[in-house]
């Protein structure tokens, strides 16, 4: 074929190219009704007049998507391979550190899977092509996060307890119902609530709190594999957060009647997210052997400052800061201590280890929490240590009372009184329901018919629903705890209890060539 110099075609900018390649793909159906094809988008009362007003912030064609994502994956798996080949798990600061990964794998990884399926729903339910594609890309990204997390933590699972049965436990173990119910709450809602719950409240407002300080801390604690998957995931999250913000602006601009609905979703999902993050607060303050940033500092930067900027921006639509946000600031001095105390108490029934903070830990906590730690929490932890020294490590073997909404044991103090446990109660159709906070109570009151359905682990245990089929609680010699652990697939004496004296600790010392005495010194 002879060479020609054809008239060069019009050069397309990123925006135009994306619009031409993508936008016109959808059409107004005529053989079936649009209401049939997209049958979920009306029941929440959100009004959308023109889907073409949707602005794509990141105009990724599939070609660019594959190209950049493949590059990210090549980098990531090269590091995971090197990490495995070099027994990188031995480079972490201390064996205790691995417990953050146990919590991550059983709490966050399943949430990523929920997000994967949730965004697949939205990718099918939104009639606008731009919005649908953005959701589909997020759906496949979230699957990436699940798998890169599993593939990274795979190496830790080979050497440490508590991770082998993560998938089984996630559907069953008591505290794992906190993230599980959170995601199921979002997924069972209408599409706009789903979007605002996860894309906006969780991703935009709150995930920075998980990924930025925690991943930076992973690096600081010598865990190169986790920091790599964490930051690599987070690069997708940046796209997702932008989607969340774009979506909320789009909905608010479509119709003023959407504003109060969106505000209610924001109030609800801010509070749901905040309660969920109490698990992160204790990861930052108690579970990292080498600490980077306190929960309070992280909350100040990522919620008060960044969230504040965001809500300033949204105020032009008539959106205000989420209800009860002041309470989260007032409680920032207390959240992690109260949460860690709960897990110290119930360590016997948890699939990760907890421990009383060391002198060094407590010095750091005093410095970071000058107004609360020494006064309210240090004495309690010192008492735990005394008990432990006498060989009487304290375990609470009762079943905790759980909040009907967030499902966290009622452990939080009153926003205006650190010495008093917050407790709210509502009667609904003749039954009493218990709550940890005003926020959780309000959420229940708005949709009681939804939250009465909650599968509350403590109640389920009492009702005999947490034993393997065929187990007879009436049989002589029935051991409820042992049967519950079987149902959880939790190996007692291995997965649960205090870090000190655990198999993880013994192995760690062996692998590092440390005698127990040296270890105490090193810790």
């Amino acid at each position: 074929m002879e060479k020609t110099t054809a008239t060069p075609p019009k050069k397309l900018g990123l925006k135009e190219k994306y619009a031409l390649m993508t936008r016109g793909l959808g059409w107004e159906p005529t053989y079936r009704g649009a209401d049939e094809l997209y049958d979920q988008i009306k029941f929440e009362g959100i009004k959308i007049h023109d889907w073409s007003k949707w602005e794509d912030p990141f105009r990724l064609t599939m070609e660019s998507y594959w190209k950049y994502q493949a590059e990210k994956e090549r980098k990531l798996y090269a590091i995971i391979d090197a990490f495995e080949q070099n027994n990188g798990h031995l480079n972490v600061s201390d064996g205790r550190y691995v417990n953050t990964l146990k919590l991550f794998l059983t709490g966050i990884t399943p949430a990523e899977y929920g997000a994967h399926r949730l965004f697949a729903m939205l990718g099918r339910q939104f009639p606008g092509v731009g919005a649908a594609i953005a959701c589909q890309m997020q759906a496949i990204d979230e699957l990436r996060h699940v798998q890169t997390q599993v593939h990274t933590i795979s190496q830790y699972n080979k050497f440490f307890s508590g991770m082998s049965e993560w998938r089984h436990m996630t559907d069953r173990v008591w505290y794992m119902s906190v993230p599980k119910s959170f995601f199921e709450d979002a997924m069972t809602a209408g599409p706009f609530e789903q979007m605002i719950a996860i894309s906006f409240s969780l991703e935009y407002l709150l995930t920075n709190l998980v990924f930025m300080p925690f991943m930076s801390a992973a690096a600081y604690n010598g865990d190169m594999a986790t920091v790599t998957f964490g930051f690599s995931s987070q690069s997708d999250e940046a796209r997702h957060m932008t989607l969340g913000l774009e979506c909320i602006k789009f909905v608010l601009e479509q119709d003023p009647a959407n504003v109060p609905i969106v505000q209610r979703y924001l109030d609800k999902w801010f509070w749901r997210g905040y309660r969920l993050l109490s698990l992160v607060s204790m990861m930052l303050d108690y579970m990292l052997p080498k600490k980077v940033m306190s929960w309070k500092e992280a909350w100040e930067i990522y919620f008060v400052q960044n969230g504040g900027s965001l809500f300033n921006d949204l105020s032009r639509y008539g959106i205000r800061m989420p209800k009860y946000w002041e309470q989260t600031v007032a409680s920032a001095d207390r959240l992690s201590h109260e949460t860690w105390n709960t897990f110290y108490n119930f360590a016997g029934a948890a699939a990760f280890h907890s421990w009383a903070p060391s002198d060094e830990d407590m010095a750091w906590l005093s410095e970071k929490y000058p107004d609360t730690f020494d006064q309210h929490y240090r004495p309690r932890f010192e008492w735990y240590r005394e008990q432990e020294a006498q060989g009487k490590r304290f375990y609470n073997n009762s079943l905790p009372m759980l909040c009907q909404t967030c499902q966290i044991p009622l452990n939080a103090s009153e926003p205006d009184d650190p010495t008093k446990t917050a407790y709210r109660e509502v009667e609904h159709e003749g039954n009493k329901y218990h709550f940890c906070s005003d926020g959780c109570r309000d959420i229940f009151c708005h949709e009681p018919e939804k939250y009465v359905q909650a599968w509350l682990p403590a109640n389920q245990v009492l009702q005999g629903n947490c034993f393997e089929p065929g187990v007879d609680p009436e049989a002589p010699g029935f051991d409820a705890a042992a049967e519950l652990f079987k149902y959880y697939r939790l190996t007692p004496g291995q997965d649960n209890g205090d870090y000190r004296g655990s198999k993880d600790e013994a192995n760690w010392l062996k692998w590092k060539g440390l005698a127990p005495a040296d270890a105490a010194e090193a810790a």
Partner: protein
Amino acid sequence: MSVEIKTANLDPVRNTFGNVARRIGGDKTASRYQEGSFDLQPVTNFHYRPLWDPERELYDKRRTAITMADWDALRDPRQFYYGSYVMHRSRLQDASEKNYELVEKHGLLKRLPKGLTRRLKAALLPLRHVEWAANNNNCYMTAYGYGSAITQGTMYNTMDRLAIAQYLSRIGLLLDDNTGESLEAAKEAWMSDPAWQPLRRLVENSMVTKDWFELFVTQNLVLDSLLHPLVYRRFADELSDEGAAVMAMLTEFMDAWFNDSSRWVDATIKVAAAESDQNKHLINAWARTAVANVLDALLPVARLMYFEDGKKALDEVYAAFQARAAKLGLTV
């Protein structure tokens, strides 16, 4: 303090996760596909009924009439997990990109005879809407399907179909000098040209199918297996007689995708049909209905492409599909 690590002390405590060990016959080193694919979906102790489907659980086996003792038996022979999938597609895409650049640089498409260009615009470009529907349908299966193994495959297929729609769009942009006019004309044909209406009706009907496995059969097994071989390789071959080998370059991705995807579709159908007579009967019945509808809907499109040979082309594609279906134990 010096630390000496004796390698003998570094034996792993276990080799893989418990759920994976139970699936692969014991605690041994598992592949990344295995660790990243099975049992990811919650199966029990659901908290709330969906507002959008209050009769069922969030994840519910009853969203299809197909039953499986173990839904994660529907494995992907390509063993794609996200990383291997994007790396594979990115390599494929690299090759296609070079083709597109070459065609654009030398204005190869625009040197085709005018009649041929018109035929391309009329017969090929409206298919981008069919691919968009295929994307939506696979997204539906991903959202409402059961089990992480099969919904992983449908997720990848969702994105593949968007990519094909975008490749078709690029062909249009090559033909119309980036004005987008050819794409608008193609959409108009899709909406009102009588030749496209039976297919559009079929596609819209597929998009309201509630049973996700039935949709898998209609879309991924039947429609794709009759439409793709009818169009891409065959149309390029036809055009190359007229000096348009260039089309083969532009549809190379579609061909590669179809071969790759068919392996996964066949494996899925085979395992589901082998599970029980009831499954086999259902799949066969769905496939037969779909085949009848698809053949009717494709005939005018085949004629648009191959004129008087349209029927013959469709018959050949159908015969090839019958042979393929027979290997899966189906009679279509």
